[in-house]
């Protein structure tokens, strides 16, 4: 047996330590019991993969925020906590340029610019801070959740008042007007009665 063959065999022997995957030279066949995943989910994609980000469908914000478009900085939180709060950067500051955020649909972005006009900085950054928990990662999750809430609040279309409600409101307004005019008439009569009677044709 020459050196090359020996090396090849040793490589194959080493590769025996691979796991339950069918990929390896077709030698190792994974064990499939009566309740293996391919039997429970026959049409599913069994290998782990990274799905692509969901495509933005024009109008509504789908919840996807690209991390690279955000500027995240960490700093120390305030409040009690001793050495931990003094030394660990748990506070999270998430900021982005609101006008240039392509990941927010155009309509929603315009509404946000109007609603958050007083909150946006001079350079056009909108920011959210969070120091809710003791953990930086959980604070980042909280900041993103707040951001999503703010965006979705602009998209929320409050239901228009029903016909019954509008009818009720109209009747109330009319009643108020009637009462006001009646009161005016009464007061005018009272004032008139205080005067001496004028020259009336009896």
């Amino acid at each position, binding site marked *: 047996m020459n050196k090359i063959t020996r090396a090849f065999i040793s490589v194959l022997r080493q590769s025996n330590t*691979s*796991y*339950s*995957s069918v*990929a*390896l030279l077709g030698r190792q066949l*994974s*064990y*499939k*019991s*009566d*309740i*293996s*995943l391919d039997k*429970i*989910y026959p049409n*599913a*994609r*069994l*290998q*782990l*993969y*990274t*799905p692509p*980000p969901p495509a933005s469908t024009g109008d509504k914000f789908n*919840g*996807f*925020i690209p*991390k*690279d478009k*955000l500027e*995240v900085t960490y700093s120390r939180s305030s409040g009690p906590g001793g050495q931990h709060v003094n030394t*660990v950067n*748990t506070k999270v500051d*998430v900021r982005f340029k609101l006008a240039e955020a392509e990941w927010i649909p155009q309509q929603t972005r315009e509404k946000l610019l109007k609603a958050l006009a007083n909150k946006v900085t001079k350079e056009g950054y909108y920011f959210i801070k969070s120091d809710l928990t003791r*953990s*930086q*990662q*959980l604070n*980042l*999750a909280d*900041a*993103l*959740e707040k951001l999503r809430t703010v965006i979705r609040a602009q998209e929320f279309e409050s239901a228009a008042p029903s016909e019954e409600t509008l009818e009720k409101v109209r009747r109330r307004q009319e009643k108020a007007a009637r009462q006001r005019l009646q009161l005016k008439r009464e007061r005018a009569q009272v004032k008139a009665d205080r005067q001496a009677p004028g020259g009336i044709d009896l």
Partner: protein
Amino acid sequence: MANLRDASDKALKLLRTLPRVQIGNLRPNPNSKKPDKRGRAQHGGDKHGAGNKGSGQRQNFMRLGYETGNQPFYLRFPYEPYYKGHHMRRQYPPLSLLQLQVLIDTNRIDISQPVDITTLCNSGLLTLKPAEMEYGFQLTDEGLDNFKAKINIEVQHASEAVIAAVERNGGVIRTAYYDPRSLHILKNPKKWFEKGIPIPQRMLPPQDAIEYYTDAKNRGYLANPEEISKERLVLAQKYGYELPKIEEDASYEMLTAAKDARQLFLGLEPGWLINLVDKTIIKAKTT
């Protein structure tokens, strides 16, 4: 230490010259025995510890627990189910991410292989007592921010933040159920193999645990793998990290290696008999 040795040498020297220990030579430590209080003379006599008049002196006591007519405390509550069945509840001893990171950094655990109960118990620093209703380890979120290892780990319970921490670093986490017999085997496989019994198959989780292990959100071992892939993206969006492309990882095969639902050991099937002495595996003939 030297002081103690001198003292013990001195004591032994003394013992050689002193007379034999006898009942008459012994004496209790000073102030260890209080003298008996007999019912006579100034201190034990007169009222004999029963006080003045009343039911106390007349030895006509109310029964223990009696509250002079109102419902006594020990009879007020007919049923207190606070701990009902507590001795039968499943326990998952915690393993924090901090501990795990330390184990990895000090080379107590080899992360080039998938990590499961056997790996953790073999490190010698963690034990599992299946007989005391311990059904495996749960990964806790202490040390969440500083966890930086890329591992393929299989535990029995993990919270969402912990799953995010593991996946953020490009790792894979799964929650799997092992019945007590399987746990007993897993925590010391060598001792089990010495028994000469074929590897049994893992049982399914009980009714109240099935929901947990079939949920992709918990990365359950019985969950749909496609859903798990989708949930990974959802969690990455929730916790604000870029999901690493696991397909392009060099150790993709190792990271996605998962046991079958009936399997105890990766690479070994139920029904095989491991012979440690002759280093062989005896498999059943397929009829």
